[in-house]
């Protein structure tokens, strides 16, 4: 455990010094800070503007940071040969993979805390109220990014970073759209089972990223989530189970890997 945590710590230390990640974080923070300045354009009302703007930026930044950080997590270690001194210590490959992932998730936590704090301060000041649901939305996004990070890490054990950008980006988009696509198809009687079943299978296999997008009911309080608490717990559990499965798969692939 000590070794895993040491690797996680080193990964975090390196990630928060990575310029591209910090530029994205900084840009997101600046945009959230200046979002109240767009008030004059707010047709649908100030609340909608500030909240949807903030949620959108945070999700975008979290997504990019997760993918950019995790594509390089393992390939960079191999390329510059830091992995050799690590694996020649009493560190098993699963320690390494899990340590890298925990480091990535700590980085995401740091990024979300920074963005979340600024977002909540901005909305408190400009809306005059503090809505604890904002925190719920951010937590869901954090789990969404953490799941995406696990997807990217998994791909990084066997594809190059460039390919990984497209693969992870593709899985993220599909995972966001598949469930509503499937609903549409199921409502359409003309779709044959031959088309429907593969899509159904794909929807089950791909991580369902749409579950985490709970910003709409927060932005528009008239939409109500039924049994909200159960839904949140269920979604978080879904993320954790899926992440564990991806980590197990990553370790299995990485164990076979030659460097």
């Amino acid at each position, binding site marked *: 455990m*000590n*070794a895993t*945590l*040491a*690797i996680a*710590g*080193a990964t975090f*230390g*390196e990630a928060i*010094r990575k310029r591209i990640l910090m530029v994205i974080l900084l840009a997101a923070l600046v945009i959230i800070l200046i979002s109240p300045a767009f008030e004059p354009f707010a047709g649908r009302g100030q609340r909608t503007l500030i909240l949807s703007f903030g949620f959108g930026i945070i999700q975008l930044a979290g997504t990019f940071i997760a993918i950019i950080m995790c594509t390089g997590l393992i390939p960079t270690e191999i390329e*510059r*040969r*830091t*992995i*050799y*001194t*690590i*694996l*020649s*210590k*009493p*560190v*098993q490959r699963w320690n390494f993979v899990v340590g890298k992932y925990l480091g990535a998730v700590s980085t995401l936590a740091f990024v979300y805390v920074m963005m979340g704090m600024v977002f909540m301060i901005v909305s408190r000041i400009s809306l005059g109220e503090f809505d604890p649901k904002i925190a719920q939305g951010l937590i869901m996004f954090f789990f969404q990014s953490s799941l995406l990070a696990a997807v990217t890490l998994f791909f990084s054990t066997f594809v190059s970073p460039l390919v990984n950008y497209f693969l992870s980006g593709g899985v993220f988009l599909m995972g966001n759209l598949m469930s509503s696509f499937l609903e549409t198809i199921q409502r359409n009687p003309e779709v044959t089972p031959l088309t429907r079943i593969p899509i159904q299978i794909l929807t089950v296999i791909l991580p369902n990223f749409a579950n985490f997008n709970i910003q709409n009911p927060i932005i528009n309080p008239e939409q109500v989530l039924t049994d909200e608490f159960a839904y949140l717990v269920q979604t978080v559990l879904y993320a954790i189970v899926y992440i564990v499965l991806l980590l197990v798969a990553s370790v299995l692939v990485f164990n076979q890997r*030659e*460097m």
Partner: protein
Amino acid sequence: MSEYAIKINNLTKRYSGLWSQQPVDAVKNLNLEVHRGEIFGFLGPNGAGKTTTIKVLLGIIYPTSGEAYVLGRPAGDPQNHYKISYLPENPYFYDYMTGREILHFYARLFGIPEPERSRRVDALLDRVGLSRAANQPLRTYSKGMLQRIGLAQCLINDPELLILDEPTAGLDPIAHIDIRDLILELRSQGKTLFISSHQLSDVEIVCDRVAILNKGELVRMGKLEDLLSGGHVEMIAEKVPETVLEPIRQLGGRPSLHDGRLIVEQPDDGSIDRVIDLVRAHGGHIISVKPYRRTLEDLFVETIQGGRR
């Protein structure tokens, strides 16, 4: 406890080429034993398969066939890694960390707890002469300083076996001597050292045994004295008549005579005494007698060129 620090049986490692590339046998049917407590030189030109063999020993890559044992356990067994350490060629470390932080990092990989960890790190920084630079980030370190940090991380677990891949590559002569002294000091503490190199001057002095690898195949292995024996002695004499030539040839020498000046290349087997007697008995006048020991460099060049023929 196994008597061997390293035992390699019939090891072959094939890199299956990607796409159009041919598969490469980086190591072919290698058999090797390294005894505990010795300094073993693992020599060969670029691309000979030295690093590949080392990676197999560490479990970073897997053998295509054959097997390797380290400290009596199969290569890659996690238990081994408490007792061995490795310095890669041209090591690179997380360069945002300071010298002290990186050593703490490696110590944590062994689960060494505080305050023991700090004690060891400080002692090692002192030992490799980096105490003053300990709080500078590694990206400000010179190549020699990085190599010393590399050696320090090798010693953090007080290992029984050290595997050093090109430990002196790219270092200046003074740094060479420092590293050589450290290697000797480690041997006197009873540690086993497995040192890969394609440079010879440093290794020559310290290795007990060497193996020479070329194109993945072992071409020579043995005690240094044995491999280096068979040098020659050169004698120069004047006023020598032609009648000595034949007896010298019979003693195994290679004489050449011009205008009474004789140059003899005699094997280094004591027969030079008889040659001197002969020359003097024929009225010759000895100018010089000079031994030429074979160097490891010579052996290396002979062996590799022999292998290429």
